[in-house]
């Protein structure tokens, strides 16, 4: 273990990243440039999130890593192993037991606490990129709060599909100031962006960090006559029976059999364990 500096990155780099994080927390929703390092994993595998996590970890922390809600997917497993090996920290799959949760594409169903940090892996931090490819121009638009374009994207959705069809990476307005891409989480999770935990967003390839301090106001963009709708599943979870959770479709055979189960595996398991205990009691 002593072959690595704690949490892989050298201390100067971690300090640089912490400064970016602090600036991000001071200006919620603002994309802070940072000198992203080469990590021992390809871009797109969470290099931004890993660097943010590395800069936040202390030896006593317990880390949880989720990918699409699950703790047992390749990406989650390898990042968890990475920190076990380079930082020697404890890991967990339990949302409640974790001090720091690194995530890709989901926010845990269970509300987070003030002593927790949620780190997002971000592929494209710029919400305006879709319509304005020039970085110089999008920066200016952010600094001058020129966000009409964001609504053009939503307008196009309604014009084409009859409703706002953007279902993930749904743009939000942070504290009435910055429009922010919440990373490719389902819009179902958008209401959970108003949280007691610190939320940090790291984009490795794009070299940007942004943040939401606890209890920041985060509003999903919409039209008066087409209000934001986080959408709910039509089914309860086939395993735990939860009705308000985000579901994955699981194909069970090659004859069209399928079931809908919670995408948040820890949430689902905790509920099932509780149900078992109840039956046992």
């Amino acid at each position, binding site marked *: 273990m002593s072959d690595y500096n704690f949490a892989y990155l050298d201390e100067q780099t971690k300090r640089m990243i912490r400064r970016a994080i602090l600036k991000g927390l001071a200006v919620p929703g603002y994309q802070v440039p940072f000198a992203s390092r080469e990590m021992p994993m390809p871009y797109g595998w969470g290099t931004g999130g890993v660097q943010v996590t590395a800069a936040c970890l202390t030896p006593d922390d317990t880390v949880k890593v989720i990918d699409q809600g699950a703790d047992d997917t390749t990406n989650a497993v390898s990042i968890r192993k990475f920190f076990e090996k380079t930082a020697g920290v404890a890991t967990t799959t339990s949302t409640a037991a974790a001090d720091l949760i690194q995530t890709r594409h989901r926010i845990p169903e269970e509300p987070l606490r003030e002593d927790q940090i949620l780190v997002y892996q971000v592929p494209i931090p710029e919400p305006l990129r879709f319509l304005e490819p020039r970085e110089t121009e999008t920066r200016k638009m952010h600094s001058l709060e020129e966000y009409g374009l964001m609504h*053009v994207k939503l307008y196009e959705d309604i014009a084409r599909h009859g409703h706002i069809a953007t279902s993930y990476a749904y743009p939000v307005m942070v504290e009435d100031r910055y429009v922010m891409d919440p990373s490719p989480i389902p819009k179902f999770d958008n209401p959970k962006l108003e949280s007691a935990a610190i939320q940090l967003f790291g984009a490795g390839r794009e070299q940007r960090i942004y943040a939401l301090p606890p209890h920041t106001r985060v509003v999903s963009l*919409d039209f*008066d006559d087409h209000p934001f709708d986080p959408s709910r599943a039509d089914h309860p979870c086939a395993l735990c029976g939860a009705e308000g959770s985000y579901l994955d479709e699981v194909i069970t055979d090659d004859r069209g059999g399928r079931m809908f189960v919670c995408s948040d595996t820890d949430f689902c398991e905790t509920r099932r364990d509780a149900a078992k205990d109840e039956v046992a009691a």
Partner: protein
Amino acid sequence: MTPLLSVRNLSKSYGAQLGCNAVSFDLFPGEVMGIVGESGSGKSTLLNCIAGHIAQDRGQVVYDTRADGPRDTVTMPEPERRMLGRTDWAFVHQNPRDGLRMNVSAGGNVGERLMAVGARNYGDIRDTAQDWLGRVEIAAGRIDDRPSTFSGGMQQRLQIARNLVTAPRLVFMDEPTGGLDVSVQARLLDMLRELVREMGLSVILVTHDLAVVRLLAHRLMVMKSGEVVETGLTDQVLDDPQHAYTQLLVSSVLHV
């Protein structure tokens, strides 16, 4: 009467190359001023300096704002200037591709300026867009089509609708009929004239086409090598040009 726009001693050079030199003029509400001259005469540089697209070296561009009266837009804070640019001002580019979002539907293109100033009711935005498409003679059924599926003339009309939807008072036009077929040009000119009168627009129109200025412009400014060599009433400048360069320009036009 207060001029809507007062340009004073506007100069711009590109290194040793002169863009435009010490240009001054007043533009009054409802006036259409043509700027003519050959390629490289500085007319586009002047237009872009006034519109704030490129930074001038010297001079003032005083605009009579709705809220605070005459203000120098050169020294005005950038957010205010950009706000002017998408509300009270409009810019019609020669190439519609420069003025349109090609990957956004016609309705979205027209609606953008409305959303930029805070419109948040989809139904209202769409109704306004529909109305404007009608005014520029684009069939209602095309509202959800992208401009890339439109003809050149339609694209140019869409660009005009997109610009005029916020009822601007000052419109900059850079060769608005360039690159269009003659028959399409006539239709566009007629439409522009109608809109100018109905909306009481003030227009600065840059073109090298003297027939276009004769039909659209009230008065003319003739530029050569970055300098204004002659100004006056459009038909007077064209029919009784005083400066050697204007005489050459007018006599060089081929008549059919």
